[in-house]
């Protein structure tokens, strides 16, 4: 039997219990509002090569979020040009299933009209809000007194920024020249042993050239 923890003898900290309670509670309270949640999301064009992790609805939420986190700006490629929402979908193929689940919950929490109504007085899903109202929602998450919202903001912001700045098309806008050319060797030898001679390089070393080590001090034996 697998032991999921805390293990026997470990006392859960009061803080841990509180946090768990708060998190669970917040998700229930904010994520479970079925009525307002049934309100429609905006529909957006899906990537030509399809989605691997996100649903079309989740994809639309990421798209809207990306447009607000990286709005149009001279010199910078647009989030659509970089395919940020598709990039987020692809990043999620490589992460733990539990992280995918939490990201999806967060996206739906952001979209959900109920918390937007309760905490911001807006009776609409995130994707259907005006851009000003969307910015206000994100500002509420960023500066919220509820840790879960700040955590959620940090997570979603990080995902979008990673997908955006992963593209080298963003480099000219920030003046980043990129790696120096002529350094990386895509044909460098890959040594796996098995009797093959190890190529001489910066990592190889002739141990006999080492100065004789000083006498080791015995650390004792178990």
């Amino acid at each position, binding site marked *: 039997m*697998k032991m*999921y*923890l*805390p293990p*026997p*003898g*470990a006392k859960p900290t009061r*803080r841990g219990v509180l*946090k768990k309670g708060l998190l669970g509670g917040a998700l229930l309270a904010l994520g479970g509002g079925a009525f307002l949640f049934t309100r429609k999301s905006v529909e957006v064009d899906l990537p030509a090569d399809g989605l691997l992790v996100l649903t079309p609805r989740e994809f639309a939420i990421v798209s809207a979020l990306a447009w607000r*986190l*990286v*709005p149009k700006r001279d010199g*910078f490629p647009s989030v659509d040009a970089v395919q940020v929402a598709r990039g987020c979908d692809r990043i999620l*193929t*490589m*992460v*733990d299933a*539990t*992280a995918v*689940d939490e990201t999806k919950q967060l996206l739906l929490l952001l979209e959900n009209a109920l918390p937007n109504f309760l905490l911001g007085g807006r009776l609409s899903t995130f994707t259907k809000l005006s851009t000003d109202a969307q910015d206000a929602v*994100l500002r509420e998450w*960023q500066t919220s007194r509820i*840790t879960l919202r*700040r*955590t959620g903001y940090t*997570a979603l912001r*990080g995902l979008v*920024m*990673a997908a*955006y*700045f*992963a593209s080298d098309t963003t480099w000219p806008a*920030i003046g*980043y020249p990129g*790696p*120096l050319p002529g*350094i*990386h060797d895509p*044909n*460098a030898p890959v*040594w*796996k*042993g*098995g*009797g093959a001679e190890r190529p001489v390089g*910066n*990592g*190889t*070393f002739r*141990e006999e050239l*080492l100065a004789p*080590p*000083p*006498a*080791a*001090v015995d*650390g*004792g*034996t*178990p």
Partner: protein
Amino acid sequence: MSQGRIVTGDELKADVTVECDVCVIGSGSGGAWTALELVKQGKSVVMLEEGGYHTRREFDMTEPRAFQNLYQELGNRATDDLALTILQGRSVGGGTTVNWCSTFRTPDRILALWKERHGVDTLSTAVLTPHWEHIEQRLHVAPWPLELINENNRVLWDGLGKLGYERGLIRRNVNNCLNLGYCGLGCPVDAKQSMLVTVLPDAVEKGLTLYSDCSARVLDWDGRTVRAVRADVLDGVTRKPTGVKVTVKPKVTVVSGGAINSPALLMRSELLSEGRVGQRTWFHPVLLMMAEFEHEVNAFRGAPQSVYSHHFIDRGPGKMGYFLEVPPVQPMLASIVATGSGPDTIELMTKFKHLNVMLAIHVDGLLPEETGGTVRLRSGGYSRHSITYDFTDAHWEAFRHSCKEMAKLQFAAGAKMVRSLHLDPVTMTSVGEVDKLDAAPFAPVQVKVATAHQMGGCRMGKDPSTSVVDPHLKYHGLDNLFVVDGSVLPTSLGVNPQETIFGIARWAAGHIGQAV
């Protein structure tokens, strides 16, 4: 013994069972040195590494490729509430493949404290010195010359000089370094003397068999003996199990997965030490400050870490100390680490070439009230665990102090703007505004906290009721299981940890060999 081999996951199409003297789990700073010394003793050694075998052929100095291949959870590892971001390596070579080459011996005061408080009477400066001397020769460890430090380090150097603070040049493990600046993304010219290009191939030449893309999932044990290590072969891209299994039947097992994955493996194996496994994890919590300069800093170029200061390492009784260094600044990580609204971050990124970033690395685990981090298994998680960290009042006091000191250093070095990494950033345009940080919230998920150093979780100690492994790193209660990595450290160090782990591993290999 004939030459060994590196077997990558894509070569494994059917289940494999191998017998050997020692199975080493993890190929980072602890596992690599242990394995090399054991094969030198003539032992047959099999190493399992969950990360892939990525070499300079792939090290193209771009972030997406590096984070995908070389970091735990694509660089997204964090505490459950994201209050603490955990940058940790995951490939052949472990953290040494992506670290920034800073090499320090373990401070005397830390070894003395381990002896006094934890009964670690096996390790001392005298015991470790011959190992450090050997390691430093093998890895070409030398101070980085002042004339070669980059502008980002120059800011720290100049600021420290202006304020009259203690400063020093970092010793780096590099050979023929081209001063490129991409240590964190895998060195494209093998100049970094990581385990990937030095100790591991040395060990393979002497007989080590290394399976990459193999995640050790459980140790089979009964009575006082580990019988087998069961591992999943992982897909090279998705990092999900392919269904192929590797089983190793060793006489002795060495767990070297680092301070998060080693405890997780023990917990999956129901080796819990009454709950102590995964507790008292230390992270050297890092606070960062960004500064904009009139001139170009180009913090993406040049040896990333070459200057340090231990000026605030000991702040007196009851206070948490810290040390100062700088990180490399590359676009993707900078944009993620930078806080604030999206448009605000984009605005900041237009100053990219002019940005300096400074780090204050806090020495946790020394104050009596600290309990540190806790690692627990997560239901449904495969490589992602539940991680929490208890920040104390002493943490927040030190964080505020270090942020103010970093801002002063940045202004002393000529910064025209300094910005904190609060979710709602504090922006200052002169040293007179540093006190604005007194009003800023220092609390979880209000200000960015990160870690690049993971320690503890399987702490060593004499008393089996307060520790996980004994002072020889043998698991209390089992006869043939050792833990050799940063997880055994009873406290954090106050210096970058790689050489401490190298030294302990090379020392431990001596008596681990005798246990076979």
